């Protein structure tokens, strides 16, 4: 049943959940120190397992998956069983979940939250759910683990949250439940129409390769998935829950949710929606691209208008989801591959930003950026961290950060899809630069404001402490590692993406991507989007896209 080291996936998923259950059930009977150790174990195991699996990743050339395992749970009547496995799309996100979870967990351990055991146990359950989402090959469990990860978020916001936490928790609950339900119906529709009698992605694919669904069915089903997942990923105009929720959420919950959980919807569209419903995806993509531009431009301006640091980070995460959507909208190996890298990099970045934002809050007692200033003198290292994170978030090529590669590939894909869309997309980068750099300036440079002086007079403003530095370093190191050595991920991504999102692009044109002579590639029509299930076509175009992804 277990193939090689696939048990590591089970460990990564179930150890955190078990640790969480132990903390919750034992309560105060567990000594403080022991409780912390249990929680630490719960956070370290998935991260280590994820990295190990990344190292050992070598997918089965036939299915594209590695580390497959299968445990029946009693719902075989509708073809559900607990199938785990990783392919090139899920691997980066699995690693992301493990690492961000580790950082969020380490930070939560020192956050000094009241009723720490319950807080940690909820976080652990969430972590287990997150690992489960990206490891599931079974669509049912994919959804199921998402909900396991989602529910603790509501509770954490409702209990440990900041301002307006009740309202935020309620609004998030209703919004995200609606989104989750819509996508659930979409998944059920997919299941029923595929006729595979199984929720397994692979058998659905196999079944659908035999007979393609009618265009109407594809359109409806994909619409359900698109809007269901879209709400979960805060697609414009369904984004209103996001900034509010993140503003109220405790830091670790915000890190996990914005960093990892929000990628669920995109991942669902990339891994399940578009490959299984190619026609529906193609018909909806132009509309999706327009909405995504709304994310980039409109939310970009909204972000610029923010004065509250946490709100700003929240809105910027909404905005950057727009780039991921744009990458997906290209439906080309380049664009989708870029979207996956960007999801990975953005997850690390936004988690880092939330973490550092809270560090800043603890030193200034406010999230209002107008009342900050001059923190850089007291906390130069913190400033360095924050600037790096901000630069990464903007997508500047600066210190070899992964975001840059992600955005670049998305833009290349977009250029091939619709030239004009590149203009507002790049304009979005400018907007990011405006608010990002302004935030850096407001917080760290300039003269200290009145209120900051009074805070500084009361107590000594320290630089970033080791307990804050450790989780931040974990995130930053991975970001830089992938930024310097993108092939560590892109090879795997490319292996999985290119057979699905083949584009009939003559190899010369793509390899000449740097030149000015690129022509948009017609993607519409029959030849543009081959059936998802056609065998991977070895040939120049695959290599070409690989080249683009792996500079």
């Amino acid at each position, binding site marked *: 049943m277990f193939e090689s080291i696939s048990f590591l996936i089970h460990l990564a998923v179930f150890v955190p959940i078990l640790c969480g259950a132990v903390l919750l059930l034992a*309560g105060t009977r567990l000594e403080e120190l022991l409780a912390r150790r249990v929680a630490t174990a719960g956070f370290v195991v998935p991260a280590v397992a994820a990295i190990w699996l990344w190292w050992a990743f070598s997918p089965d050339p036939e299915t594209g998956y590695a580390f497959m395992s299968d445990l*029946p*749970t*009693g*719902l075989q*009547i*509708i073809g559900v069983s607990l199938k785990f496995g990783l392919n090139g799309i899920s691997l980066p996100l699995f690693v992301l979940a493990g690492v961000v979870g580790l950082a969020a967990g380490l930070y939560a351990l020192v956050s000094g939250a*009241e009723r720490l055991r319950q807080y940690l146990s909820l976080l652990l359950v969430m972590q287990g759910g997150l690992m489960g989402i990206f490891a599931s090959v079974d669509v*049912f469990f994919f*959804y*199921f683990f998402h*909900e*396991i990860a989602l*529910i603790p978020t*509501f*509770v954490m916001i*409702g*209990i*440990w949250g900041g301002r307006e*936490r*009740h309202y935020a*928790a*309620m609004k998030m*609950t*209703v919004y995200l*439940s*609606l989104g989750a*339900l*819509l996508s*659930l*119906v979409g998944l*059920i*529709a997919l*299941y*029923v129409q595929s006729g595979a009698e199984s929720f397994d992605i692979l058998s659905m694919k196999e079944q659908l390769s035999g007979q393609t669904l009618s265009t109407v069915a594809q359109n409806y089903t994909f619409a359900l998935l698109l809007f269901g997942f879209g709400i979960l990923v805060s697609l414009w105009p369904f984004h209103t829950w996001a900034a509010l929720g993140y503003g109220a959420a405790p830091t670790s919950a915000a890190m996990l949710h914005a960093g990892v959980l929000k990628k669920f919807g995109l991942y669902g569209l990339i891994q399940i929606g578009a490959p299984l419903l190619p026609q529906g995806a193609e018909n909806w993509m132009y509309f999706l691209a327009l909405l995504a531009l709304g994310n980039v431009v409109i939310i970009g301006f909204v972000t610029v208008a923010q004065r509250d640091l946490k709100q700003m980070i929240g809105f910027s995460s909404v905005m950057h989801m727009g780039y991921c959507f744009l990458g997906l909208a290209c439906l080309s190996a380049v664009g989708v591959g870029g979207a996956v890298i960007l999801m990975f990099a953005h997850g690390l970045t936004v988690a880092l930003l939330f973490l550092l934002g809270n560090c800043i809050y603890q030193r200034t007692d406010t999230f209002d950026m107008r009342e900050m200033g001059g923190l850089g003198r007291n906390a130069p290292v913190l400033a360095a961290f924050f600037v790096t994170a901000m630069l990464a978030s903007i997508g500047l090529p600066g210190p070899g950060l992964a975001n840059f590669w992600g955005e670049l590939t998305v833009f290349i894909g977009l250029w091939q899809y619709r030239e004009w869309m590149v203009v507002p997309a790049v304009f979005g980068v400018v907007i990011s630069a405006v608010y990002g750099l302004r935030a850096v300036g407001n917080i760290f440079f300039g003269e200290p404001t009145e209120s900051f002086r009074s805070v500084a007079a009361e107590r000594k403003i320290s630089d970033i402490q080791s307990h804050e530095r450790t989780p931040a370093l974990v995130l930053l190191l991975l970001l830089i590692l992938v930024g310097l050595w993108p092939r560590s991920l892109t090879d795997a991504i490319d292996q999985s993406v290119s057979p699905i999102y083949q584009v009939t692009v003559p190899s010369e044109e793509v390899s000449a991507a740097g030149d000015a002579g690129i022509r948009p590639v017609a993607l519409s029509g029959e030849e543009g989007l081959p059936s998802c299930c056609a065998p991977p076509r070895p040939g120049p175009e695959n290599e070409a896209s690989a080249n683009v992804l792996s500079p």
Partner: protein
Amino acid sequence: MNENLSPFKEIAASNQWSAILPEISLAVLALGLLVLEVFFPRHRRILIPRIAIGGQLVVLAAVLLFYRDGAGFLGQETFAGMLFHDQAGQAMRVFFLLSSLLVGYLATVSLAGKPVPKVEFFHILLVVTAALMLLAQSNHFVMFFIALETVTIGFYVLVSYLRYQSISLEAGLKYLILSGVSTAILLFGIALLYGIAGNPLLAGASPDPMNFGALNAFLKNHPENSLALAGMAMVIVGVGFKIAAFPFQIWVPDVYQGASTPVTAFLAVASKAAGFAVLLILVLKVFQPMEAVLVPLLSVLAALTILFGNIAALTQRNTKRLMGLSGVAHAGYLMVGVIASLYVPWAQGAVLFYLFAYLLASFAVFGVMAHLSPEDGTGDELDDYLSLAGDRPFLGAVLVIGLGSLAGIPPLAGFIGKLLIFVAAFQAGLYWLLGVALFGVVLSIYYYFGWIRSAVFRYWKTADDEAEDKQPSRERREVTPVGRWILGGLAAATVVLGFFQGPLSTWLERL
């Protein structure tokens, strides 16, 4: 009468009393309780409820051991066609025994210290349970009617059991009148079906037209007979009252509020489940030829039931009324499952799974309610739950799990139930009904979370919240160790069934 002798023997041979041994033992136990009350000295009478619960446990164990697969009667008619034993009937037997056990436990909690006799409660509880078990296996309208009425009359008494409270009596009276009307309509429907299906001049008519099989055979020949259609509609109305489908749900909030908590739980779970067991039998085995009329009728009812239940529950502040109205919504989802089972065979199992999940979650919630409400019947308002999780974390956790499962949130059993029904509905092509159901689920999340919010979120008080809160004056009913096991077990089962459905689903699959 000589010519009658040989059929007499034949019929007597079909009276296989061993097929209904569980029901008989319950009835004997019920009689035994009354006898014990007479012969026990006063100080020993406190043992009688325990004897009742212990006896039920033995019966439950015996059913699980020997009758899980019908003890050799599976697929047979007994008692001259009065009963038919199938796998669903066995599942419902377990279901009713389980719920009556839990009601028994809640009664020991809730009735303690109230000036009402205890033994009779258990007597009626046992008789009603036996009748419910027969109801779920009935195969003939006479049996169906008598079992149904035994249940109903038992409930009249149980609902008005706290007879020193006007609201309890008032609830009893309302239940009585509305249930009486529904019974009359049901009977008229049966009469019409009997008349038309027994007409010797019509093809397919049977000399025993109230037998479900015979009636089904007749309806296959006359699926569009208007008298039969009218009869079918009236029978559905009668059953609709039991399951509290719209527009026959008007009794629900009042009766739920007035009855004592164990009785409310019994009504909400067992009585409703009985309605669905019967509806499944009627729809699948009797009225199935009338699909063309039956499906639209049930679909409209189901949609209205879902919408009404959820919308009415949105504004409720009284928890019992909230449970009642949300229970109406659950009836709607279940009706969707029943309709789907006409097209998708395994949907019947899905309905039963949903019922089991509903049983676990409802009893978890009602169990918490029984421990919270003081003796005068107050304490059922949402405001009485403020800061529950802080004061009594165990009850808070059980409540959250129960409500979460009712709302259908993964990874709890209620979610699996809803998922199975939705998948079945999708396979059956009931798209618009599915849309309505989803809308209902979103609404339900709102009010269930409102309750959870009252119970949990407020325990982290800020100064503002402190000022807002009315401090609930709560008499503490300590949870006994046994109670901890029972409530904890319900919550644990709800969670485990969300992850791992193994034994239950394989059992229900065999339907």
